[in-house]
């Protein structure tokens, strides 16, 4: 399983043809207490860079962009009842949605864990 990161502070786990998407620990730390997550509908086609979800903290409402192009296959229903999962387990249980990967070459420009850490350190 390969994990990728975007400069919008999302992570993507690629497992076969399916990608799981969430926001990073750094992102949740910046947002503060998450109170609501608006997830995409299953079956929705999203384009790389397009809006896919909205995450609301006590401070702000932020868009979560699709890191790649594809179709949403599943949304994390656990976030509806417990949005704070994004704070407590951002890169595991607090995942946002799973999607297909229309074009694997879109993953090429993304960062790995080491590159993302360097990216955050420089912020």
């Amino acid at each position, binding site marked *: 399983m390969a994990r990728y990161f975007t400069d919008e502070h999302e992570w993507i786990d690629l497992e076969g043809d399916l990608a799981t998407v969430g926001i990073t620990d750094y992102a949740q730390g910046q947002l503060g207490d998450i109170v609501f997550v608006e997830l995409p509908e299953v079956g929705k086609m999203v384009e790389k860079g397009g809006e896919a979800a909205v995450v609301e903290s006590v401070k702000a*409402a932020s868009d979560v962009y699709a890191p790649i192009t594809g179709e949403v296959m599943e949304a994390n229903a656990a976030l509806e009842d417990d949005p704070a999962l994004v704070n407590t387990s951002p890169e595991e249980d607090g995942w946002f949605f799973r999607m297909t990967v229309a074009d694997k070459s879109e993953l090429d420009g993304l960062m790995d864990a080491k590159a993302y850490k360097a990216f955050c350190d420089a912020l």
Partner: protein
Amino acid sequence: MRYLPLTDTDRSAMLAKVGASSIDDLFVDVPEEARLSGPIAGLPMHASEMAVEKHMRALSKKNLAAADAPFFLGAGAYRHHVPASVDHIIQRGEFLTAYTPYQPEIAQGTLQMLFEFQTQVARLYGCEVANASMYDGSTACWEAVAMAARITKRDRVVLSGALHPHYAEVVKTMAKFTKDEIADAQPSIQPEADLEGLIARIDETTSCVVVQYPDILGRISDLSAIAEAAHAKGALLIAVNTEPVALGAIKSPGELGADIVVGEGQSIGVGLQFGGPYLGLFAVRDKKHVRQMPGRLCGETVDAEGKRGFVLTLSTREQHIRREKATSNICTNSGLCALAFSVHLSLLGEKGLRQLAAENHRLACLTADRLARVPGVSVLNANFFNEFTVTLGQDARVVVRKLAARGVLAGVSLGRLFPGVEALANAMVVATTETTTEEDIEALGAALEEVLS
């Protein structure tokens, strides 16, 4: 932001930015003949304060004011008695906190009042959540339509023909800037609203159905059949109420299955006020839709010491945080009118509201009975609250003018509400309130007999 007047350089820079050559260019959408090209003829450039006062007083005597004549106008704005105590209480210092209560530590008076206002509106409408108010009933109606589109992700809107035409106009105007397609209609002159016809217009692409309750002709329908039909197709039912006093006598729209209930709150505490400012009421039956609501919401919480307090909540829906993705561009509420509404309703209490509603209805029944005895007049409605429609057998606009000349403000002609619709021209909507006296009713009956004979 500097609170200083703009310089000519500032103005030129702004005009250049938007591509206009002069300030007048910004008004090209106003028809030429409606624009002012110079001083108003006959209006002196200067006059003393005393002279202006004298002149204005003379002008005001030409008016026939609502309180100076038998008055039966309604159709969305009602002349109710507002007790003097309302005016006294709304001016108390506790309420003179910041207009925009972003700092709860200095605005508890305003916030608590808004919280209680929301509770009153929610109970009146039979809903779980109400917001801290909108500009007026018609804009609240549009906001409900926009909210339904967000929830259903559909954009076809069905307006009942018996929705106030001005509300329909506001919805159509706002929809020019969205993807929503508005299907409007006209009311049929029948004792009961055509619910089957309305239901037939709902399909799988409909985001919402908008009905007025009681409707523009004063008729009261059981909304539950429309609610069921809408829900069966995945659409929402929006109920619009222009006379909240009616809800002291009839079932609330939420109870009948409406998903979003909106309306005008002017009847309680606000007064006619030359047509504004008024008070938009907005509530949702099921709190699961709260994040799609427009406007401010005030919530109850506890402070660091565990004491009860009030704050604005769920602000991430709002424009000052969410910018262009906000649920609405409203970033305020009708604070003072909401306060007056809340104070008046608190003074009435539930029992008082029921009594007030009963008195309104009693006087409407007397009026309907009296008008039914006038040759040429027939009362249309199978039922009504404090407002009903009569047909006169001739152009109601002309009759209304003749009655006004006799010092009776008789009603709102449908020709005025629906200009150019021949089938409606002979009808008039007549409203009563607790301010209507039996002498007023007799004056209307007698004047109508004279004019129609």
